[in-house]
């Protein structure tokens, strides 16, 4: 391994360049022809608010997508902005962590947007940015991950994690009551354990089950990825030879959970999903798997956030409400999707 070093840099360049270009080339050849997730937009309507008004520049930032839900957030925001003639969207990708997002946001500020829509990596860590932007006179629409300080945002729109757990537990408990199961075995497959949202979801689930006198027999956390869902579910099935109901927090990891269900050939229980992916809704509508319902945590909130930002930028209120301005906080209800209403929700699936 001891050769003269003089030609190394050129070699390295060659190899590096060859490797990179080969990768890009091949990726281009076999790239995914799948159509992008159909956006959840709403521009058509009869209210006066849909009329083109003052031009609004909206700055948008969300974490780099690592799973379907976040990808849908960004896609929805872009699609909704595109549906308005009077909105210009300036999107900056927020990179891998809060520090990267802060850096990206400072470049966004320099472009002087009228309103900023922000899904922070971490509400606590970016709270200071919200305060700063508000002080500079740029209204901030805080999307989903909440700033703790109410002065850091003009409007906050988010999902209801605790409510998701409540909705899932209510559906499961009611189903088991109808079936007359008195002492049910209930399993839970949460997402990443260390996240606050996971803990809130699990708390809502446990609290509501307790009100029916039920409890969770076993919890096997996954990581929001398909393979971790499959492994967590496999562990759960080993621990519980007979199960009555399972709540899986996330439909994306649920693909893996359903795979494990088939591989273990377990059909004796009902399963409830979470978030509301298109695939989950199709499975529920088809009614040929253990998945009988899913409780929503819809990325459509990104579309709504853009609409709210536009109204704030134009100084308008929500036309169905009496108030002249947009409300300060909006928490989406977690809705339960079953076979009966799956077709209505399909357009909101991601």
């Amino acid at each position: 391994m001891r050769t003269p070093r003089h030609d190394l840099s050129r070699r390295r360049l060659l190899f590096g360049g060859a490797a990179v270009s080969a990768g890009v080339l091949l990726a281009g050849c076999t790239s995914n022809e799948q159509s992008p997730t159909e956006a959840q937009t709403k521009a058509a309507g009869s209210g006066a608010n849909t009329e083109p008004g003052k031009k609004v520049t909206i700055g948008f930032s969300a974490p780099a997508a690592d799973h379907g839900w976040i990808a849908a957030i960004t896609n929805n925001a872009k699609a909704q902005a595109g549906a308005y003639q009077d909105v210009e969207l300036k999107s900056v990708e927020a990179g891998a962590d809060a520090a990267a997002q802060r850096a990206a946001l400072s470049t966004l500020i320099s472009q002087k947007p009228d309103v900023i829509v922000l899904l922070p990596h971490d509400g606590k860590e970016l709270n200071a940015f919200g305060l700063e932007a508000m002080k500079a006179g740029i209204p901030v629409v805080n999307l989903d991950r909440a700033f703790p300080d109410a002065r850091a945002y003009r409007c906050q729109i988010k999902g209801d994690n605790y409510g998701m757990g409540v909705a899932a537990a209510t559906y499961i408990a009611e189903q088991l009551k109808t079936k007359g199961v008195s002492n049910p075995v209930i399993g839970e497959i949460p997402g990443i354990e260390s996240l606050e949202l996971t803990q809130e979801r699990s708390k809502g689930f446990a609290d509501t089950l307790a009100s029916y006198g039920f409890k969770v027999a076993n919890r096997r956390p996954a990581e929001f990825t398909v393979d971790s869902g499959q492994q967590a579910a496999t562990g759960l099935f080993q621990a519980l030879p007979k199960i009555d109901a399972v709540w899986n927090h996330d439909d994306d990891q649920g693909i893996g959970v359903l795979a494990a269900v088939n591989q273990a050939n377990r059909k004796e229980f009902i399963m409830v999903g979470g978030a509301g992916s298109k695939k989950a809704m199709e499975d529920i509508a088809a009614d040929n798997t253990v998945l009988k319902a899913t409780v929503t945590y819809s990325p459509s909130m990104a579309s709504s956030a853009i609409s709210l930002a536009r109204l704030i930028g134009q100084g308008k209120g929500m036309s169905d409400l009496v108030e002249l301005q947009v409300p300060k906080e909006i928490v989406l209800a977690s809705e339960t999707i079953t076979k009966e209403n799956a077709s209505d929700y399909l357009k909101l699936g991601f």
Partner: protein
Amino acid sequence: MSDVRESALPAQSPPVERAETAKVDAPAKLSWWRGDGGEGVKRNLGLLATLVVLVVIGILTRPDLYGDPNWVWGNTLTILKLASVVGVVTVGMTFVIIGGGIDLSVGAIVALAGVWCTTVATQSYGAGGMIFTALTVGLAVGVVNGLLVSYGRLVPFIATLAMLVAARGLAAEISDKQTQVSGNTFINGIASTNVLGIPLLVYILVAVVAAGWVLLNRTTFGRRTVAVGGNPEAARLAGINVRRHTVLLYALSGLCCGIAAVMLTAQATSAQAAMANLYELDAIAAAIIGGTLLSGGRGTIIGSLLGVIIFSTITNLFAINNLSAEAQNMVKGGIIVAAVLVQQVQFGSLTQFLARNRATTT
């Protein structure tokens, strides 16, 4: 390699300080562990004993489940099934580590190969096309790793760390950050098919392990791997093309990742860029507790396999007792440290270290 060092040492150390060395050599128990030739077997016996202990803990904590022989058989197969993907990756990793390198990119390669083989375009070629794509992508990335390390002279840690980041990025780019569902019933069937009551995934694991064992122990390729890892300069002087051999080792690891990608895609019936998260650490940890020397030159395939099965059994043990994942990770960490400490004692590194310390201080 280690035999040579150990036999050489006692000859040197006595003159240094008689009383001290006597104390260092005192634990006579160590000598049978150091018995010539049987080292690997004895270390594997230790791993088997660990497995037995884990199973006994399982029996004590969940006697209700272990009372049912059907459940025990099914559970054993499940443990092996869950070990299969990481097991295949670990076989490749063991070769790379024995050869004196490290491959941090294995998890990313699995994800990239999995994503690439489940694109709409690839799926249109059927199961054969998907498997071919996964294996080719794995092999190609492995070759790039090998070229960077051997001809580009990058430190393996850095070359494969760069590949880790780049391959995950490319996987995210190809999949557009979406989960790609595999609609191919043949591929999905790999994870749900049983042959003679044993899952196909377990057969694949056994086949890869057997091939790895033969390659390491019964071919010149395997002997060269040990030589290159033990002392690359000596290997080069002995006429081994060290660079080419290094490329082959990383290519082998990449190929194993390609196989693992097919297995994991089958298990999850889908693929995404974030999958196989931290498999590199699982594989390295399994190889290490299996007795593979991180600095290269020594290691066994069977030991690595036992390492993977031990981790899989721990996961299972925590699942059936409804214990948290945090506690599980702590136990895993403890086992890695314990295994390495035991190895140090076994192979006299500790005594060497002490003797050397004394030699330098006097």
